[in-house]
């Protein structure tokens, strides 16, 4: 360890700076979650306070927490699968076809990406009302997917671009069809991008809140993100409660990330063999 740090006189300290920049706010979140509401303002920049687990006890005693966690899991997974199923082929198609259509579609995707989410709520509410999708997980997954698909396509396209066409052409000479080449050659090579995009989509869907509170008519269906919102009341924010819930709801995220991180690392070594 010491030798490696010495070998990287610049990178080591810089990494530490990055670490501090993100660890301090996180530490503050954890400290606040352990404070009584009185201490939040009273001991803002000090570490001297009497820790209490009240906020966690309250959060964990809430029976709704477990239903909400299940809801979040279903919604985030469903959204991730649906978005990837649509965006992967689209990203590939747009990476390979050079025509005016590509230009137009890319431009439209950016405009879609630019749509304020708040502006979608009312039209989608009407649409879902007609189609009986209100108050269902399917409706929410569709809404979240419609929101995130343009983003996923834009993000995936450069990863498909960087797969050399020579490999595809070689496969074609061997008689492989376009579709087969896509699955056997292109997808494996683009997996870093796909894993990253998938992770990001999952996290975004996990945190999505505006659609959830508008399209679920009954609070029992609310996912975790909506529980977090309940800590913000008419008169102010319950900080310890908010921070404790933030910590609790982020733990599944951490687990997911550690899982995909392994995937990414394996991707690196496999890529080196190629």
């Amino acid at each position, binding site marked *: 360890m010491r030798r490696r740090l010495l070998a990287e006189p610049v990178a080591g300290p810089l990494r530490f700076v990055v670490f501090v920049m993100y660890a301090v706010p996180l530490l503050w979140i954890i400290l606040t979650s352990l404070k009584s*509401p*009185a201490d*939040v*303002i*009273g001991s803002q920049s000090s570490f001297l306070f009497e820790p209490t687990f009240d906020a966690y006890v309250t959060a964990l005693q809430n029976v709704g927490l477990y*239903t909400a966690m*299940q*809801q979040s899991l*279903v*919604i985030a*997974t*469903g959204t991730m*699968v*649906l978005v990837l*199923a649509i965006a992967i082929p689209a990203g590939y198609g747009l990476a390979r076809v050079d025509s005016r259509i590509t230009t137009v579609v890319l431009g439209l995707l950016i405009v879609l990406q630019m749509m304020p989410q708040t502006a979608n*709520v*009312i039209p989608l*509410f*009407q649409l879902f*009302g007609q189609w009986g999708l*209100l*108050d*269902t*997980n*399917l409706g929410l*997954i569709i809404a979240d997917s419609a929101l995130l698909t343009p983003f996923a396509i834009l993000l995936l396209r450069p990863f498909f671009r960087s797969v050399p066409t020579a490999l595809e052409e070689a496969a074609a000479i061997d*008689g*492989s*069809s376009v*579709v*087969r080449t*896509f*699955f*056997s050659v292109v997808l494996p090579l683009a997996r870093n991008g796909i894993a990253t995009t998938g992770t990001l989509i999952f996290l975004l869907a996990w945190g999505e809140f*505006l659609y959830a*509170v*508008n399209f679920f*008519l*009954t*609070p*029992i*269906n609310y996912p975790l993100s*909506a529980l977090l*919102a*309940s*800590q*913000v*009341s*008419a*008169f*102010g*924010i*319950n900080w310890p409660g908010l921070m404790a819930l933030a910590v609790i709801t982020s733990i599944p995220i951490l687990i997911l990330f550690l899982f995909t991180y392994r995937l990414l690392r394996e991707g690196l070594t496999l890529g080196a063999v190629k």
Partner: protein
Amino acid sequence: MKRHSVSRPRRALATGAVLAAGALALAACTPSASENGGTADPGTPSTSQTISVWHYFSDENQVQILEDYKEIFESANGGVTVENVFVPYDQLNPRLISSAASGSGPDVVVFNGADAGTLALGGALAPMTGYWDSFADAGQFPDSVVHRLDGEVYAAQGYVNLLGLWYNAEILNEIGVEPPTTLDELNDAMDAAVAAGYAGITLSGLPNSQGEWQAYPWLTAFGFDYADPQVEPLVDAFTMVQRWTESGALTREAVTWDQTVPFQTFAAGGVAFAENGNWQQGTAASTAGFEYGVVPLPIGSSGQVYLGGEGQAIGAFSANPDLAWQYLEQTYFSYDGGVIAADLVGSIPSRLDAAGDDVVTSNSLLDAFATSIANNGGNYPAPAVPAEAVADQQLEVGQIWSAVIGGQLSPEDAAQQMVDLLAGLL
């Protein structure tokens, strides 16, 4: 070779299809509510005796009020179920309005009373004039808590929340002043507090309706009136506030404060006064490590304090408005209902009889607020502001209030700008 190549992609495509189908099946199989939790859609007309109550409360004690009301109503009316539906505060109005635009909504709404006009215009509330006129106890309610639009009653407030002047008795003792009863006394007390090394006052300068709500008492103290907006009283009020920020009595940081932070700052000690509400009783009791008290805001005879709090109304698309009214009549608008609210969260019952109950009169803090209602209580929003302009007026006045505290506008510019803006709105 060619034929061989067809089968693999098919399988691959099939895998993709299975994945997608799996996702959809996953999505479809888990809406847990409709199976175990009563009515799935409070918006659909149903014949069952269920009434849905939309609200934005998440605080434990506030939620307890709703639970108590639910119990009262359910036990008095066999076979009726009350379903309390929580909607986050920021989302309640948008959701009521977008539901109304597509023809649905709850049976009963508990909302920020100031938004009654907006919600009524948005078609989210049903007129309840008929019920109100035949309500035997209607006379118990002061006119300022009944929300009317175009001659129809749309909502009323079972209890009110308002601002008072909280003081740190220990600091006042140390600097040797009594709780102020006039603006001059308040300013002198603050100067003395600053000289002794304390902060003078905390309040909210957020550029939105919360800021406007906190600004109103000070503006009216100098004679400002929305019915006839004049520059001079505003200049006086803004000059006073900027004197506070210049002397250090009030931190300019107040422009980022909602109403919770300033009170917690006050409760942490070192501040002589706080302009804050009766709902902070619980926080004060649990947090403040010093003697404290409340007096009415010292804003003279012209000064007004908004009578805020939640409005209660019948949803425009309620399938059973009669039952919804019964709910309101037996809970929010009843004597016991008022006492419950006073007892649990320290709200002042609107009903004159309930406001005279021991719960209120035996509590010196609540008593100060009750006195303030009698002397300075004013309609929220101000009656001179037309319903369709309320949201604009609150926001823009809040922004000017924020700019004055932040020191971006001089009192003269701010006052002129505000009068010009109001001329376009009123």
